[in-house]
Each structure stands twice: as C-alpha cells, then as structure tokens.
C-alpha cells in the first residue's frame, strides 16, 4: 500500500508523515493548508467544507496514483477535512516521499494544485456579515 487518501472531520500532519516515511526514502515533502483569518482584507470567522465524498475520494486516488505512476514518488498521503473549521485549523495535508527530493517537491505541488481544480469539495467562507461559496461566481 503506497497510497493513503482520506476525508475526515479532523486530520493531522503526523498521520500523513507516518504513512509515507520509510527507511528506503530519504526525503519527504509536505503541504499543510490551514484556514486563514482573512480573505482580501475581510475577516474570516470560519469555513465550512462540503464534500461529494465517494467521488472526492476517487479523484484524490487518481491524483495519488498519477504521482506514483509518472512522477517518481514512492508513497503519498492526501488528507482533507470535511465540515466546519476555524482560523488556524488544518484543512488539507499532502505528504510525498521519494528517493530524490526534487520529484517529491514536484509531486506534492502537483497534488495540491490538482486537488484544488478537480476534487469535488466546496468551501463556504463565513464573514461577520455574510457567507459565500468560494470561487462559485466569475
């Protein structure tokens, strides 16, 4: 098993790191995405994430398998939360392990960029005076 994909109410960096680390891989690159306290100068109170979970898992699995099959990665973990999160809390963790660190950087960046484009997860930002679904409108 060289791929871990998971959607849960809470995720953590250590779980992703524990999954990908192994004595045959010297380098691990991680991306950790947290809730920011503001967007374009507007104070963010909280975020709410909704997932089409079975399809989101399938799309995350596709991303993971692509990095293993074509980018030189040995192991990868992609974790994403669902539900409500507050500023500073962790929303997404990606960990990629490879014998050579260059490809681990490339694969980790590819994974987060692609996740943001293809995985059916939706983020609602709550401000003090209203809420919007992020990126829904042009």
């Amino acid at each position, binding site marked *: 098993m060289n791929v871990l994909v998971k959607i849960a109410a809470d995720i953590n960096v250590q779980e992703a790191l524990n999954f990908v680390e192994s004595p045959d891989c010297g380098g691990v690159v991680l991306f950790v995405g947290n809730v920011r306290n503001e967007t374009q100068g507007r104070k963010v109170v909280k975020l709410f994430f909704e997932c089409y979970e079975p399809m989101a898992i399938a799309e995350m699995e596709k991303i993971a398998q692509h990095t293993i099959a074509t980018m030189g990665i040995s192991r990868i973990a992609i974790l994403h939360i669902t539900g409500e999160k507050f500023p500073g809390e962790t929303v997404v963790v990606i960990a990629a392990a490879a014998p050579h660190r260059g490809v681990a950087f490339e694969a980790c960046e590819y994974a987060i960029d692609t996740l943001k484009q293809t995985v*059916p997860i939706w*983020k*609602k930002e709550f401000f003090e005076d209203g809420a919007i679904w992020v*990126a*829904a409108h042009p």
Partner: protein
Amino acid sequence: MRVLLFGIAKDIAGTPAITTTAVADVAALKEWLYTQYPALRQLRSLMIAVNKVYANDEQSLLPGDEIAVIPPVSGG
C-alpha cells in the same frame, strides 16, 4: 432521474437531491437544470458527474446512474 446537488447548486435548488424528467444525455440534463434554476447560469462553471466521474455533454444517461451536479470546486 435522481440528481445530487452540492455547494452553491444545492443552495440554489434548495435541496440536496432533485428528480428530473427523463433526459437522454448530459447536455439535455444541463438544459433542463438551467431552465428550472436560471441562477445556475451565473456560476463560473457547471460540471456533471456520472457514477462519480466527470462526464462530457455527449455522455448518455442511463437509469440507475448516479448523477451529480458539480459547481466550481474550492477544496484545499
């Protein structure tokens, strides 16, 4: 046909699942959705997933397919 809705599409329809009249393919489904819920036209994009895979306009819809409306995603 039963169709799942998420995110802003769910808010626009006011429900997480709707039943459509019979539609032959994805293009016809989108046309039906835009007629029922004109606000969907204002979204940056609108994708349809069939059995948890993104579908193009030409894809046929069969009874028993799991169909979902995918407004612009914003995970991460």
